[in-house]
């Protein structure tokens, strides 16, 4: 009995009372709750939840091509999510990844179209990435500077800039940069030298996926191993204290937004140069918003983002298989994604409750030990 109790204690300690354990536990609970509710919905429309989820898994991971598609889908989510995790660590509510993706994609497309025929791939591809990164960062710079200099809330400005970017791109690809041979707005195809190499024959798996993974490492290192990342985290956790400790908070906030926008710009870049080979109006398909869900699910942890991006991408990719195998509408996956994010939101609350209980517990322990010490002295 006591042994069992001890075991439960230890388990409780690992699952709830270590910060890492708390994060993992609550994330898994959020996903489980969402999948469960999703299963109920699937059952409610008369299909088999097990069959549906099975179809999603086989559709997303069942064969080489499926895995490649899932990875290709996950890569831009991962890149944009990485950027958002930096901004969110700084407590900058960047809702504007979508617009930053458009800005980055457009800049990459323009670079490819103007330089791709003149320069070798080894030169033009890095230039495209640089262009995408810069454009995304600049697009994020606008709300960042408005926030730090004038104190205007970044949330609304990033939302507005999403639409401005989407419309501006719409105009560009319909007018000055329109593919003359196409009946609808899109740019011409980018030259071969500009296209990202495919790394697995007969799939669409392009090198952008690897680049995204490289950036997981980079962002992880920046956020957790560099002094800049440390400054970003302090500024996000308590800007007042960060300032009192000599950190230039406004500068740090701006840098975090530049990184955030830059990463979203890279997501746009690989969509253009690795997947569609041209700028189209549908370049993102809501990646900028899904990336918010991906980031929140991963609790702004770069490493966890890989799993969370794969999870969201697998749902999207497996959705078609689910539709024809289990006769469940594709949209059910959006439903599950939405439920995940709402449960993740609820997790914030749960997390606080556990923390408070932990605090009460340690205070009690402390008192007990004080009392014990007092008794000893007497």
């Amino acid at each position, binding site marked *: 009995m006591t042994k069992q109790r001890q075991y439960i204690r230890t388990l409780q300690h690992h699952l709830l009372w270590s910060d890492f354990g708390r994060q993992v536990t609550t994330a898994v609970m959020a996903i489980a709750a969402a999948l469960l509710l999703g299963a109920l919905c699937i059952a409610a429309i008369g299909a088999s939840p097990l069959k549906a989820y099975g179809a999603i898994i086989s559709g997303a991971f069942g064969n080489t091509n499926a895995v490649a598609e899932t990875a290709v889908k996950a890569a831009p989510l991962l890149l944009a999510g990485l950027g958002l995790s930096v901004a969110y660590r700084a407590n900058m509510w960047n809702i504007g990844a979508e617009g930053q993706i458009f800005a980055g994609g457009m800049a990459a497309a323009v670079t490819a179209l103007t330089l791709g025929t003149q320069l070798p791939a080894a030169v033009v591809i890095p230039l495209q990435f640089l262009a995408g990164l810069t454009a995304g960062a600049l697009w994020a710079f606008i709300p960042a500077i408005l926030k730090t200099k004038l104190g205007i809330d970044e949330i*609304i400005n990033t939302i507005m800039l999403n639409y*401005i970017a989407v419309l501006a791109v719409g105009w560009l690809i319909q*007018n000055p940069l329109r593919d003359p041979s196409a009946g609808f707005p899109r740019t011409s195809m980018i030259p071969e030298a500009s296209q990202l190499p495919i790394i697995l024959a007969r799939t669409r798996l392009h090198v952008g996926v690897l680049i995204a993974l490289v950036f997981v490492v980079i962002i992880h290192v920046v956020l957790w191993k560099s002094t800049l990342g440390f400054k970003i985290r302090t500024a996000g956790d308590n800007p007042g204290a960060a300032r009192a400790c000599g950190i230039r908070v406004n500068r740090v906030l701006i840098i975090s937004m530049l990184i955030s926008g830059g990463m979203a710009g890279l997501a746009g870049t690989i969509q253009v140069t690795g997947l569609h080979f041209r700028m189209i109006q549908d370049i993102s398909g809501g990646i900028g918003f899904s990336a918010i869900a991906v980031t929140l699910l991963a609790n702004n942890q770069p490493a966890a983002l890989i799993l969370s991006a794969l999870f969201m991408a697998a749902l999207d990719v497996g959705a078609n298989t689910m539709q024809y195998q289990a006769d469940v509408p*594709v949209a059910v996956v*959006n439903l599950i994604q*939405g439920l995940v994010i709402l449960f993740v*939101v609820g997790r914030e609350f749960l997390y606080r409750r556990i923390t408070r209980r932990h605090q009460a517990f340690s205070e009690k322990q402390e008192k007990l030990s004080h009392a014990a010490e007092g008794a000893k002295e007497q």
Partner: protein
Amino acid sequence: MWEVLASTTFVIGLLQAALRTATPLLLAGIGELYGERSGILNIGLEGIMLIGCLFGFMTANMTGVPALGILAGGAAGIVIALIHGVLSISLGVSQVVSGVGINILCTGLSLTIYRAVFGASYSDLPRAPGMTPVQIPLLSDLPVIGTLLFSQLPLVYIAFALVPVTWFVLYRSELGLKIRACGEHPMAAETVGIHVARIRYLCVVITGFLTGIGGTFLSLGLLNFFRDNMTAGRGWIAIAVVIFGRWKPTGIMGAALVFGLASAFQMRLQAIGIDVPYQFLLMIPYVLTMLILIVTYGRSAGPAALGKPFIKEQ
């Protein structure tokens, strides 16, 4: 080209379209105004509107009565808004995150339900009986403005009637005073015996209802069917409308009309085949919203406690 633009038919058509485009923005904007005035920021309007749009359509499709559709859309909006309410009022979590979650959820929810109910066939598009214009006796016979102002869909009248009603509620009723107090200084409101959470829930419900019926205007007013992501960003514009309208009912009406006009103008121009960079017209609302934030920085007209959780201490 200029003759066409100056012609009476064009102008009347334009204004009429502007009124119709402005209506869902106005409904959702007024709805959001109640929420924000009480201190609750709801950026899930897009999702709520979409759900309202769907349920309005479904109900009208099944019952054949558009009015029931409108009510059902409002009710569905309330249900979704209450999720936001529980998360942001009772649990005190980030209102931004909750709103983002609601948008994603509603995108999925609306499509799932639509497919589940109507199947995935695109060839045979389900339709619902739409609202029919209501002619106001005598006034609708007036030249020019008769057709423009007095022979509109019922929701148009309701939306514009909500402007003075809301002004009256906010500034001339006890409830409105309480709402404004909760949005400005919830602690002070609590000390004079106001139940802040209760008032905020009420406002969240109003937001949900009005945004929901704003959604039904799309599927029962502008068009008579439902399609994926039918709201196409109108919920986000409604949030901009509230800011652009400086959190005042009349301001919101003005903002909704400006936005409606910009959007109607580009549609009209495209319709008559004039090639203009319509994207820039559509951009006007967003740019204006940012500009007004920049011009008025530091003296925000927004409620002081907007977006801040308020949990009573014991």
